[in-house]
């Protein structure tokens, strides 16, 4: 490990892939805090901050951004390698909406002024962004959103409510999809607006989820006045922009790593419960294990596609469905074999590898977020299989 030299950020993209992988490993080994590996919950900014600032200081914060904007300018292939290594090391997801969502959108659609105003502050950690898309009546049917922005002089007046806003309490800026034309077809009256969370009229209320965690929030807008200069791209084109941004990162929703982690914990639990050698259990475990191995192979075919420079089609939805349903099936099995331990709030015997109920509950929202699995099946049916209606 120590023998690997970590090159300057600008040189990373030129490395040969396998060498790059070794560099990422060395970088994590050297820089990532041990106590934050594989955290059982999504971390808050106060916990994420040291790692975020370390990445910022080393120039590694924005792997996908072009170099001229302070990113690493990595190819999709290298971004995948980076993500694989982060996942393998158990690196926690940071407050990354500025890095992953807002930054690329401003780079693609923002004015020069907007780029200079917003991009550097993501890179310094001064602006922490959250995403205001979903609403109480616009979840799977996102285009039905009703939070509206009405132009009044050189300001928009925003009224409405967002929900499932991840880590909104940590953020000081929010990017919104807002309705700017109520007469148009629902996808065609939506715009993209950037809002300072300190603006009067904004209220944030955390929602305690089934994990007893407060990562999701509701955000209320009551006559919030936003400078018109904070509109990104063309008026009423927000939907198209948000959609165009769904790039190859969609593949990560189908990364089998979570299932691999859960499977290895299932084995530990089965041994602890004395059922591992049981023939009936062995067959159940084998089914899950084979599901995992074949999903890994399928996932690999999509990674190869990206490495060849091809883009992903709608069929990538398969990965998300398969991964999240497998993750759930594994944790279902954990509950079934755990006896009364299934109901414990804390990890069994204080062993973090035996966090049975915790893992089971963590697996629940995976089939809901990022486009529910029912929506993903609709996409497969219509856009891949060509079924009508």
């Amino acid at each position, binding site marked *: 490990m120590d023998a690997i030299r970590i090159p300057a950020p600008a040189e990373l993209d030129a490395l040969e892939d396998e060498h790059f992988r070794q560099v990422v490993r060395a970088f994590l080994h050297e820089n990532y805090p041990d106590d934050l590996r594989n955290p059982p919950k999504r971390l808050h900014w106060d916990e994420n901050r040291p790692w975020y600032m370390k990445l910022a200081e080393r120039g590694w914060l924005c792997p996908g951004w072009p170099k001229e904007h302070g990113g690493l300018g990595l190819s999709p292939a290298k971004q995948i390698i980076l993500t694989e290594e982060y996942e393998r090391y158990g690196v926690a997801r940071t407050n990354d909406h500025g890095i992953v969502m807002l930054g690329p959108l401003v780079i693609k659609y923002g004015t020069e002024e907007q780029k200079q105003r917003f991009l550097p502050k993501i890179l310094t950690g001064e602006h922490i962004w959250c995403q205001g898309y979903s609403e109480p009546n616009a979840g799977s049917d996102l285009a039905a959103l009703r939070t509206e922005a009405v132009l009044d002089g050189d300001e928009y007046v925003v009224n409405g409510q967002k929900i499932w806003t991840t880590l909104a309490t940590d953020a000081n800026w929010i990017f919104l999809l807002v309705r700017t034309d109520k007469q148009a077809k629902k996808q065609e009256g939506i715009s993209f607006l950037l809002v300072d969370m300190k603006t009067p009229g904004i209220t944030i209320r955390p929602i305690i989820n089934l994990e007893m965690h407060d990562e999701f929030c509701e955000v209320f807008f009551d006559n919030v006045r936003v400078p018109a200069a904070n509109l990104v791209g063309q008026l009423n084109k927000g939907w198209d922009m948000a959609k165009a941004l769904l790039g190859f990162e969609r593949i990560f929703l189908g990364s089998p790593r979570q299932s691999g982690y859960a499977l290895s914990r299932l084995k530990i639990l089965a041994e602890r419960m004395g059922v591992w050698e049981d023939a009936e259990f062995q067959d159940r475990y084998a089914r899950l294990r*084979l599901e995992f191995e074949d999903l890994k192979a399928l996932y690999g075919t999509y990674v190869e596609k990206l490495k060849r420079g091809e883009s992903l089609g709608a*069929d990538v939805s*398969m990965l998300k469905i398969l991964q999240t349903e497998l993750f759930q099936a594994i944790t279902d099995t954990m509950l079934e074999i755990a006896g009364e331990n299934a109901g414990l709030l804390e990890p069994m015997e204080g062993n973090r590898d035996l966090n049975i109920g915790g893992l089971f509950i963590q697996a629940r929202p995976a089939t809901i977020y990022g486009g529910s699995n*029912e929506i993903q099946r*609709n996409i497969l049916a219509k856009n*891949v*299989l060509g079924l009508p209606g």
Partner: protein
Amino acid sequence: MSATPGGEDRAESIRMIRDSAAAVAPPGGDMKRVRELRFRTPGFDAAVLRQMGEMGWIGLRLPEEAGGAGLGLGEACALAEELGGALVPEPLIPAMLTGSLLAAVGAGPLERVVSGEALVLTAWQERPDTLEVPGSPDAPRRFLPMAAGAAAFLVPVREGGRIALYEQQAGAGLSTEQTQDGGHVGTLEPRLGEAERIADDIGEALSLALDEAALLTSAYLLGGMDRAFAMTLDYLKTRQQFGKIIGTFQALQHKAADVRMQIALTRASIEAAAATLDAGATGDARRAVISRAKARAASSSMLVTRECIQLHGGIGYTDQYDVGLYLRKAMVMANLYGSAALHRRRFMAVSPEIEE
């Protein structure tokens, strides 16, 4: 084993094999020939088997010095898949198994087998759902595919720690039972007194050949499920009920999406296994990927063909409509060279710990 080219060349080589399969497997899915051969003896066309030999298919995997084409499992699986899509009844996979056994020992009627002139079946199996070869001298050999058309049988016989190989000409001692796909399986009484001993120890070669046959069977099943699903999609896009195209119904759309995912997993599993073996994996690593692929193909071929019948409704239950042919083929082939349960057990026995 001769080297197989990689990357672009490899993809091209696999494309060529797929194209060449059209000679025997009509791409339009015309089932006339398949239907004519059903429930007749010997259940396949000897001329087509010879054609397969001439095209180099039976010897596809064999080294060039043994009269083969020296190609990899990537190519062999692509070919089997194409044949499965057309439900080609000629017993190519058993013929390839025999060919690789004879090539490994350098004896017996290798040339006649590889040319497709004669069907020679390896009579290794003594009980259902097994990959083990007890080699009992007098135990009947079971489940010999298309045995009525065989010119001879190779009978493995255990002699101490080794498995010797005998060649027994066809004739007395064979009985047959019909199978759901319109073919048949034979049971052979070994008559070693009249047979010729052609090799001293084929144990290792036979276990490799059985593994490859399991993988090729998986690929054949993949071709079948892919084609059955394509037919089903066409049906969903044209059939109307309640004044609507039935493919607009979400319940059916989601079923179709699930079927598509099973097919994608099966393809990924088979292609990963072929690539692993072509890269030189042996022993447990080989057995693990083959068992994965066969377990997947066995269960998904049944699931997919069942759902295809269901999605068709009543017409799917008629013998006249082709989708049922795929179900009947899956019933026969899903458990060949080991059922899903057998391969799951074997996978657990040989697979290394999970890689996180």
